[in-house]
């Protein structure tokens, strides 16, 4: 084949150029469409994953609610959740004291303080120290008092420590006179209620 006879091949060359143009336009158009749909697919994939995670989380939350709601409501009723109810605590101490039959007791409540973060576990946990001073006839009175208080306690508390000491050597042995004094420190715990709602 010799040198191309361009003069008689104009139409053929135009045909080639037209084919090139059309093929290029078609390819670019379809590629753009494919890329757009690819992006839409990825976006939809992300939305689907988010919806799936949301559903999974809601299931976990449902499980948590089913497992813990009754206990939580009971804790709320006891006063562990919400504002502290100091009057109820004092009332419980008085009732326990009367039940055991002790002569009387002194109490002192300190201002509410935030608990140790390691104990609070990111919850708004607060603690109020209550110091009780109570006279005892015998050592078992303390044990009976603590058992009675545990039965009546409206919230959650923990006995931090006690000190039993003698009131001194009496000149004579009088009946029903306290010979011992107990000083106990109790920590009342409360969790402040926050408005968070479900998600």
């Amino acid at each position, binding site marked *: *084949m010799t040198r*191309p*006879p361009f003069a008689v*091949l104009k139409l*053929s060359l135009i*045909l*080639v150029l037209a*084919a*090139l143009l*059309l*093929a*290029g336009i*078609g*390819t670019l158009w*379809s590629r753009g*469409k*494919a890329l757009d*749909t690819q992006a*839409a697919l990825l976006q*939809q*994939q992300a*939305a689907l994953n988010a*919806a*799936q995670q949301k*559903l999974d989380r809601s299931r*976990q*939350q*449902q499980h*948590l*609610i089913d497992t*813990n*709601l009754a*206990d*939580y409501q009971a804790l709320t009723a006891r006063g*562990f*959740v919400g504002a502290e109810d100091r009057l109820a605590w004092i009332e419980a101490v008085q009732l326990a004291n009367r039940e055991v039959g002790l002569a009387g007791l002194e109490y002192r409540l300190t201002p509410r303080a935030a608990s140790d973060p390691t*104990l609070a*576990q*990111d*919850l708004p946990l607060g603690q109020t120290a209550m110091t009780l001073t109570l006279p005892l006839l015998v*050592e078992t009175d303390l*044990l009976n008092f603590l058992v009675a208080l545990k039965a009546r306690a409206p919230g*959650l508390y*923990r*006995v*931090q*420590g*006690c*000190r*039993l*000491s*003698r009131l001194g050597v009496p000149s004579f042995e009088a009946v029903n006179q306290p010979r011992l004094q107990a000083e106990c420190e109790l920590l009342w*715990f409360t*969790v402040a*209620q*926050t408005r*968070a*709602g*479900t*998600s």
Partner: protein
Amino acid sequence: MFDHRLILLATPRQIGVLDWRPGHMHWLGEFSASEAGLAAFRQVLLNHAQLPVLLVADTVDEDYRSEILPHVQGHARSELLARKLKQVFRNARFTGAWRQARETTGRRDDRYLLASLTDADWLTPWISVLHRERVPLYGITPLALACQHLLSKLRPQAPHTLLAFRLNNRLRLSYYHNGHLRFSRLISTDTPTQLPGNAADEIAKTQLYLAGQRILPREARLHVLLLDPSGQLDSAQAQLNTDPAFSTRLIDLQSLGRALHIPDAFLAATPEIAPLAAIAGETVQLNLAPPELLQRHTEFLWRRGLHAIAGTIALVGLGITAAYWLHAQDLIDQTLQMAQQQQQLDARYQAIAQTFPVQAATPEQLAQTVSLARHLVSQPADTAALLAAVSQALSAEPDIHLESLAWRDGAPPTADGMPIKLDAALTSFDGNYRAAMQRIERLMETLRAVPSLHDVRLLTSPVNAESSSTLTGKTLNAGASNGPAARFSIELVYREAIP
């Protein structure tokens, strides 16, 4: 589609047209060399415009020469052949050369077959029609070359073959060496070849001529193939077989039809299509057409190539576009499916969320609060057991007067246990600190013996006998009853005994 072409069989009296494409052929008829014939021929060309055309010439005015030429290539070969053709055939217009083989010895020259149509005036009207109608003529070749392809399809075994082909009352004798055309001659109707004896004579004379020209080796035995659709050469076979210089084989139409894949009836009606069909799909090795006649075919090839390129580009573009489009459709379907799945998930989430109670805390906080509460009230100190353990030890030491007992409990409780501080005094202390220390030590041993009490150590003793401190006091008389109290403190740890 690309192999569709017209094959023309031109003789001084007429021209036949075969419409050929692989697997199909159609005989369009013969047209005489008259005004009417030329017009009809032109109409046939118009009806088959843009088909490449091969013209096969069947004439007595042809000449063949075998030449040994130096082996050159490219432009040098073209010039060499042009000079040689001009030298051999003078001013003949239709000449051509075919490089058939290369010598294996000596300079390894090239062996050429030169051919020419020595008188082609009769061809001019047909060529003019082709030129006027801009027909892409791609070759002019002698019928002997077409017969060479016919011969190859018959697969003769002998190296020296003479094909006697009787067509239109004319006998063509073509000699082939190893399947390559070396010589051909046409005996026209003016000679009395209709007699079988004359045909045998012509074959014998041709054999003598070939031997005389040293085209055919003298000792070579010539294998003669007799091909005559009319059957008039059958009797020549017997005459030739009497001569040991020949071996003959009669080709019948059935064998020819099988070799060419042409129905027998079609071949019997138009036997001239046999060589045309044989050469139709082959490359033209010996082309007698001058370059100016091939210009249309050159344009045709370029045009067809460009159209093929355009078509290929369009197809590729269409294919890529279709692939992308289908891919996009697939992605759209996937997106729609995902959207439906998302809607289902959202609906299920809404159904679950509606069951959630109106709660101040999140479910996580709720669970955490419950867990914390359990943790805070877990493992409360067993005060009774603690007092019992201390009491057990003190009971063993009645002369120890307990003054105070203090303990602390951690929140939450730790594995270290509860620290206890015990303040006590010795009863009936007579001032003998050594004895007092022994009694205190005994108490400590008693405390250590209790399983739940650990790490017992003396915190303060009745007397500090360390060298680094000041020690004051007074001694008592023997039997003194109210001596100074011997107070001491003991620190220990209470851990519930593991059963």
